[in-house]
C-alpha cells in the first residue's frame, strides 16, 4: 500500500505540470488587461509599460511560463496585480477559512447523510423514507446562495440566534493561530468562549453548503444499501440467524460505503469550488472571496494559484478515497 501511495504521488507531478500549462495558456489567451485595470484609467502609457515590465508581461509566453513554473517550486506563485502581494502569501492567509468551511459542511453531510441513508434503506417506503427523500429532492435543487440568504433571513435577521455574516467579530481577537481553523484553534487553546463565537459564525454558511452533498450522500447510501441488502450473502446471514444489527453494521455498511465514498470525494472539489458563492453571501474571508475579487479584476496569478490549490486538494482527496476503498473492501487490490 505504501508503494501504491508513492506511485500515485509521483503520478501527480506530470498532472500538475500539465495543469499549470493549461491554466497558464488559457489565462494568457483570454482577452483582458489586468495591468490596465490595476493602473487605473488615468495611468500614463509609461506607467503601464513599467508595470508590464515589473510583472513580466513583456516577455514571450514560453519564457513567462518557465519563470512561473520554476517560481512555483520555490514558493513564488507570482504576484497579485490587485493586492500587490505574493499570491502564495495570500493563499496561505485565506485557505484555512475555506478549509474550515468545507470540513464543517462535509462533516454535517457525512454524519447525517450516511445514517439517514442506512435508515431509509432499512425502513424502505416508511414515513421517514418518504419525508427524507422528498427533502433530498429539494435539497439537491436548492441553490446554495439562495439557501444562504434564506438562512440569514430566518436565523440572523428574524430570530437573531446567529450572526448575519463574517467569520469573527472585529472587536474580539481570534484564538492563537495553530491550524488557522478558528474552531479547532479555540479548542486547542481551551477557550470555550472563542469556540462558541467561531462556531456560531460557522454554522449558517456550513449548513448552506452542506445541504446538497447531504442529500446526494443520503440518496447514494440508500440506493447502495438497498442493493447490498438484496445480495445472497445477506440472505445467508439472515438464515444463519445473525442479528440484523450485526448484519447491517458489519457486512452491509462496508459494502455500501464504496460507491458513497466516491461521491464524498467528488464533493470535496465541488465544495471547494462552490465556496465562491457561499463566501460571497456570508462575507467569509476565504479563497472563494479572494478568487472572485481576482476574477472581477482579471488578475490572472491569484486565479491560477487558487485553482491549482483546489486541484491539488482534489487530487489528494481522490488518492485518500482510493486508499479507503481497500479499507472497506479487502477485495480491492492496490495496483
Amino acid at each position, binding site marked *: 500500500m505504501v508503494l501504491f501511495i508513492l506511485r500515485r504521488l509521483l503520478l501527480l507531478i506530470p498532472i500538475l505540470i500539465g495543469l499549470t500549462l493549461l491554466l497558464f495558456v488559457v489565462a494568457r489567451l*483570454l482577452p483582458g488587461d489586468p495591468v490596465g485595470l490595476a493602473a487605473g484609467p488615468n495611468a500614463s502609457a509609461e506607467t503601464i509599460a513599467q508595470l508590464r515590465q515589473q510583472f513580466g508581461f513583456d516577455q514571450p509566453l514560453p519564457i513567462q511560463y518557465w519563470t512561473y513554473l520554476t517560481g512555483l517550486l520555490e514558493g513564488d506563485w507570482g504576484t497579485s496585480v490587485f493586492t500587490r502581494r505574493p499570491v502564495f502569501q495570500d493563499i496561505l492567509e485565506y485557505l484555512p477559512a475555506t478549509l474550515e468551511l468545507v470540513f464543517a459542511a462535509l462533516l454535517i453531510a457525512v454524519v447525517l447523510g450516511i445514517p439517514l441513508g442506512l435508515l431509509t434503506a432499512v425502513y424502505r417506503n416508511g414515513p421517514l423514507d418518504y419525508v427524507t427523500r422528498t427533502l433530498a429532492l429539494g435539497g439537491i*435543487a436548492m441553490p446554495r446562495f439562495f439557501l444562504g440568504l434564506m438562512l440569514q433571513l430566518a436565523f440572523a435577521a428574524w430570530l437573531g440566534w446567529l450572526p448575519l455574516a463574517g467569520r469573527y467579530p472585529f472587536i474580539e481577537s481570534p484564538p492563537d493561530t495553530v491550524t488557522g481553523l478558528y474552531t479547532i484553534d479555540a479548542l486547542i487553546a481551551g477557550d470555550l468562549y472563542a469556540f462558541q463565537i467561531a462556531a456560531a459564525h460557522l454554522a449558517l454558511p456550513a449548513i448552506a453548503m452542506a445541504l446538497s452533498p447531504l442529500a446526494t450522500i443520503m440518496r447514494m447510501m440508500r440506493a447502495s444499501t438497498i442493493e447490498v441488502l438484496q445480495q445472497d450473502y445477506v440472505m445467508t446471514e439472515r438464515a444463519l440467524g445473525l442479528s440484523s444489527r450485526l448484519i447491517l453494521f458489519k457486512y452491509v455498511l462496508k459494502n455500501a460505503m464504496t460507491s458513497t465514498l466516491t461521491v464524498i470525494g467528488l464533493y470535496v*472539489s465541488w465544495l471547494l469550488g462552490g465556496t465562491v458563492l457561499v463566501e*460571497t453571501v456570508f462575507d467569509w474571508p476565504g479563497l472563494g472571496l479572494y478568487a472572485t475579487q481576482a476574477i472581477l479584476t482579471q488578475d490572472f496569478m491569484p486565479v491560477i494559484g487558487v485553482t491549482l490549490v483546489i486541484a491539488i486538494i482534489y487530487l489528494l482527496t481522490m488518492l485518500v478515497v482510493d486508499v479507503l476503498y481497500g479499507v472497506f473492501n479487502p477485495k480491492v487490490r492496490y495496483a
Partner: protein
Amino acid sequence: MTAETQIVIPARNRSARMENWGRAYYRFRQSWLSVIGLTIVVALVVIAILAPYIVPHPEHVAGGTNTAARFLPPSADAWFGTNELGQDIFSLVVVGSQVSLFSGLAVVFIAIVVGTAVGAVAGYFGGWTDEILMRITDLLLTIPSLILAMAVAAALGSGVFNMIVAISITWWPAYARLVRGEVIGKKEEQFVVAAHALGAGWARILGRHILPNIVSPIVVKASLDMGFAILTVASLGFVGIGVKPPTPEWGTLLSGARSYMPDYWWTAVAPGMAIFLAVLAFNLLGDGLRDVLDPKARR
C-alpha cells in the same frame, strides 16, 4: 368431450415502434414525480416563450422604472412585490425565465456536440489520439468548474453569449468521458465489424452505426444536467459575472436583492424560488427519463 376452442390472437393494431413508445410512456407514468417534473418543465417553457406578452408590466422589463412604488410588499397588484426601482418583480422573474432556460439548454447542447465529437474520436481511434484528448479532458475535470467558468466569462466580457461559451468550456469534458466509454464498448460489436467489412469509412461507422446506439445515456445525462446548467447560469449572475441588468436574469435579480435583504426580503424570494423550481423540475424529469431509457439504473 373437448370443444374446439379457437385461440384468438389479438390483432396488432399498432406498429412495434409505437408499442415501444407506449411502453416507455407507461414506464414514465409509473412515477408521479417525473410526471410533475415534466408538467412544470412544459409550463416553464410555455411561460418563457409567451413571457413578453403575458407579464403585467412589460415596460419594467425594458428598463422602465416607477420610483413612486419602491419596495412595495407582495399584494394583489404586484404579486411578488416591487424592487428598489419600483419595478414589478413578477414581470422581471417571468421574463427572466427566457435567459435562464435558453442558456441552460444552449450550454448542454454545446457540451453534447463538443463532448460527443471529442469522445467519439478518442474512443474510436484509440492510441495516441485517445491519450492526448483524454489527458486534456482529465485536466479540465480536475479544475473547479465554477471558478474556471467565472474566469473565462469575466475575461470575455458580459453578455448571454459569452456566458454560455464560458460554461460550455467547463461542461463538455464530462460528455467526452461518457461517449468515449460507450464508443469503446460498441466498437467491437458484430454490427460494427460488419459495417467495416462492407467498406464503410470511420465517419460513417461512427455517425450511422455507433452514435445512434449510444443516444440513451447521453439523453439521460443531458436531462439530469439541465437543472445544474440553469443553476450555474444563475450562480454566475449572482457573483456579478455574465448577464448584466437591465436584462432580467434570476441570478442577477437575486444578487441585486442581496443589498436590501432583511427588510425587503421579497425581492430575493421570487427569483430564488424560480431557480429552485426550474432546477427541481428538470431533476425530476431527468430521473423519470433515466427510468425509461436506462431501466437497469432504476432503484
